Each structure stands twice: as C-alpha cells, then as structure tokens.
C-alpha cells in the first residue's frame, strides 16, 4: 500500500544499465524534480555504501536527498529518500523512505529494472505537516471521526 513499484526493460547489458542509472544519474534525472529552493545544476549519487545522494543548486548550495544503503553492482542499489513536510532533508533515519532498484539480466543485451519506493509511511513529518491544519494531526483526527460517525450512521440507517 505505502510503496510504489515500477518495472522497465532496457536494451543494454545489466552492468551497463547499472552504470547509466548510477554514474550517469545526472544526465537523465528530470531536473524539474528537485528539493532545493534554487534551480538544480547537478544531481549526484555517490557510488558506494554510505554515499551521499544530493543535488547541487545553480548557486553552489547543496541539498541532501538521502544516503546509499546498499551498493551491489550490477544487481542492486538501495538509497533512502528522507524529506520532511517543508520539503527539506530530514536526517532522522526513522523518517527515511527507501528506494530499491534491482537490475536483472534478461539475455546478454536486455535488462529488467525493477524499482520499489517503499516505507512512504515513515515520512511521518510529511504527514504531520500536511495534517497540521488545526494543530498536531488536527485534520486527520477530524476526518477519522467524521468517517467513524458516517459509518455508524450508515449502520444505523441500515
């Protein structure tokens, strides 16, 4: 439920698919998708476990997206994406969503790339902020009460 899954097939060998995804990350990542307040000049994925995943703005400022949790070329890559409700990096690992990318050879010239962005529910700062209309969790609570009330109502009518 709280994960997003995608599978694409690419017409290159598995090691090349992994290389394009990681080393060439900056060449293909859509520049519109960034976190920093200034336009993005470069998106960087450091090629090692514990590496940084971040953007560099046109003014030279840097903005973290997450860290590299697993670096297993050419088969697997896991990075975190930890952004809070103010669209900023949240350093608390408990608030980190994860992106796992698996590269599987499907013949010598074809690779299946499976991506899963999971633990979206861990981005609870995001939820809190979105929910902070009338204080902490205000709206979520009200909506839950409303839902309970309407369900009760429905039961009574039935």
């Amino acid at each position, binding site marked *: 439920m709280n994960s997003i899954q995608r599978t*694409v097939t690419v017409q*290159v060998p598995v090691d*090349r698919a992994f290389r394009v995804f990681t080393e060439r990350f900056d060449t*293909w990542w859509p520049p519109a998708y960034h976190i920093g307040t200034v336009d993005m000049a470069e998106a960087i994925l450091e090629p090692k476990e514990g590496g940084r995943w971040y953007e560099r703005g046109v003014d030279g400022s840097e903005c973290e997206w997450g860290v590299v949790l697993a670096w297993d070329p050419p088969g697997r890559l896991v990075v975190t994406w930890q952004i809070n409700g*103010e669209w900023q990096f949240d350093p608390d690992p408990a608030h980190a969503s994860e992106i796992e990318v698996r590269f599987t050879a499907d013949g010598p010239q074809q690779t299946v790339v499976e991506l899963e962005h999971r633990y*979206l529910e861990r981005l609870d700062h995001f939820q809190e902020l979105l*929910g902070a209309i009338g204080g902490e969790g205000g709206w979520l609570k009200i*909506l839950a009460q409303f839902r309970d009330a309407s369900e009760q109502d429905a039961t009574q009518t039935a």
Partner: protein
Amino acid sequence: MGTYGDAGLGLLGDPSRRAIFELLARRPSSVGELAAQLPISRPAVSQHLRALKDGGLVVDTAEGTRRVYRLNPDGVAALRAYLDRVWDDALTAFQKATLNENTEDATDE
C-alpha cells in the same frame, strides 16, 4: 491502483500544477501568494487550484478574508500521487539514456 492515484497522475503531469503542488508542500498559501512566485496569472493559478482541489490533492480554508490552500491532509495519498509522477518521468528518462548510451558505444567502436 485506486482512482485517487490515477487522478493525481494526470493532475501533476502539468508543470504549473506540479509547481503549485510543490509550493504548497513548502507552505500553505493564497492564490495571490502563489501567483507572485509563478510565471502565470492569478486566474490561471485559480484554475489549477480548482483542478487540484477537484482531484483531492489540495484543500482550502477561509482565514479571515483570504482563502488559504494547502495539500490534502491525507498526506500519503497526495505524496503517492506526486511520487508516482516522479518515477514515471524518471524511469522514462532513464530508458532513453540507455538508448543514447548504446548509440554512443556504437560510434565509439
């Protein structure tokens, strides 16, 4: 995938709407505040807000004389819709990049 996600996907395909969505993620804002930060007119902002509201991604509340817009408090749904869009675009771009890589190698060899 639920209808919610589908609605979000289509809605955030428009760059102006995505910009509005991202601005509202940072801070709840009025139409005027959004228009001041975007290269589009106030009526255009209003129109996009209406579409986002109809799609369930944005809610509005009256604060005195102003109407303030913010992301739907059902945060995961709004975030999901956004990330669905991000990964669709990103993986399409990645696929294209691998094609380029092939061409480059072919010319190298």
